[in-house]
């Protein structure tokens, strides 16, 4: 049976959540959207019904957060709780119903990004962990990991600096470049800690799009009960149930890989 990180919300039944919850985590501009755009059609081709969701996409609070951030007026605790509201709404109204219906839920970030952002802003880690203790444990978390030196050209040369992605609320006196460097470096450090604690599968996001996609396919195939693996992988001598070495490609990527999309700014 599925579990939460400690607290069970009223009215939520954890039985029969037969779908799979797959998380793609990573910092701003690391290429999550590009991968998600490839993963969805690929999964659908295999016959999986897919729901995707991501931060600020709740009906209740999504628009409110975006509106509030335009004015840069939110305090740190307020912003953190606003995100938690958005997440709770999506959990109840998008993620859980989809899992109950047997869907693969692909989520662009999960509680970990929200926790990392809050901790970088100096909020109490115990407090933030308690808030998200009602979240469902996912089936897998794929963390697209990148160093700040590889990240900077990607972000800057595609869309420029964004106020929030640069953590300008934390370093208002710095220029955007300095602030971005500091902010993203501390964010990445938080992610590394979380990666250990929550057992992320780490993928090197400085690789090219195709390599990353192949690794994600391999990892996701493993999560989906090997259903895809049986169909597409060349049978191995002896037993087809033998575990595949991590990171080895599962299927050839037949689709043309588009150039990395210029992703939207931080949600």
């Amino acid at each position, binding site marked *: 049976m599925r579990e939460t990180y400690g607290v069970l919300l009223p009215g939520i039944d954890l039985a029969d959540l037969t779908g799979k919850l797959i998380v793609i985590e990573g910092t701003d501009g690391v290429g999550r959207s590009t991968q998600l755009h490839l993963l969805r059609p690929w999964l659908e081709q295999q016959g999986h019904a897919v729901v995707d969701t991501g931060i600020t996409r709740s009906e209740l609070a999504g628009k*409110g957060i975006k509106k509030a951030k335009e004015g840069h007026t939110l305090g740190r605790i307020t912003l953190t*709780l606003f995100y938690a509201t958005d997440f709770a*709404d999506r959990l109840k109204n998008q993620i859980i119903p989809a899992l109950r219906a047997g869907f693969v839920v692909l989520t662009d970030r999960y509680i970990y990004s929200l926790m990392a952002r809050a901790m970088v802003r100096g909020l109490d880690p115990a407090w933030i962990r308690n808030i998200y203790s009602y979240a469902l444990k996912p089936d897998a978390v794929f963390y697209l990991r990148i160093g700040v030196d590889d990240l900077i050209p990607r972000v800057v040369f595609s869309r420029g600096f964004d106020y929030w992605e640069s953590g300008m609320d934390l370093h208002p006196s710095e220029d955007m470049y300095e602030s971005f460097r500091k902010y993203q470096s501390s964010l990445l450090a938080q992610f590394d800690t979380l990666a250990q604690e929550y057992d992320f599968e780490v993928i090197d996001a400085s690789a090219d799009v195709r390599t990353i996609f192949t690794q994600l396919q391999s990892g996701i195939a493993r999560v989906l009960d090997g259903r895809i693996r049986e169909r597409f992988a060349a049978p191995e001598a002896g037993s087809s149930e033998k575990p595949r070495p991590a990171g080895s490609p599962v299927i050839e990527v037949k689709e043309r890989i588009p150039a990395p999309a210029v992703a939207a700014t931080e949600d």
Partner: protein
Amino acid sequence: MKRYGEHRFPGKLFVVEGIDGSGKSTQIMLLNEWLKSEGYGVVFSEWNSSPLVRDITRRGKKKQMLAPSTFSLIHATDFADRMEHNIIPLLKAGAVVLCDRYIYTAFARDVVRGMEPKWVRELYAFAVKPTVAFYFRVSLEVAMKRILVGRKGFKYYEAGMDLDLSENPDESFRLFQGRILDEYEKMIAEFDLMVIDAALPIEAQQSQMRQIVRGRLTQAKRLRVAP
């Protein structure tokens, strides 16, 4: 992030709590008038009043989109906005801040809606501990008599209709308030709430309140110019 009980500000924070019909809003209004006449810098902060979050809460309630979790979190968001932008800066400046409802309202309501008591208390760990939290204790019967005079029907969440206690809004409201009352009773010792007998005459309650508040006003700033 400072936690409940760790804040040290020159200002003073007085809050009133109690079920609907306990008379707490009348009492804090009278306290406000008195403090102003005494020359204190008094600011009144209401539950659910942050302009930022208000529209979302209102829409969520109107469309009945709120689950216990989102009901709890959206109110905490609203409260955090008031705490960060309003209450804390005012207390730093030495003001007397008055709140009609505070975190204890959330503890009572959210727990009745099925949220874990420990989770909700930790959620509000960023709140400043009040100088005094007055709890206006009243029986359900007396409160219902006061409320039902001149009132036509309850709103969906106000009556706790989301809890499926009864299909009749008046009956649902009564059952819901009864459970809230039980939660308040549990919190008296836990949070050292100052109990005021809300069945007493209004004047008697107000005089008790003023006596208690007077004893706690050291350091709060008086305005130099007479009102």
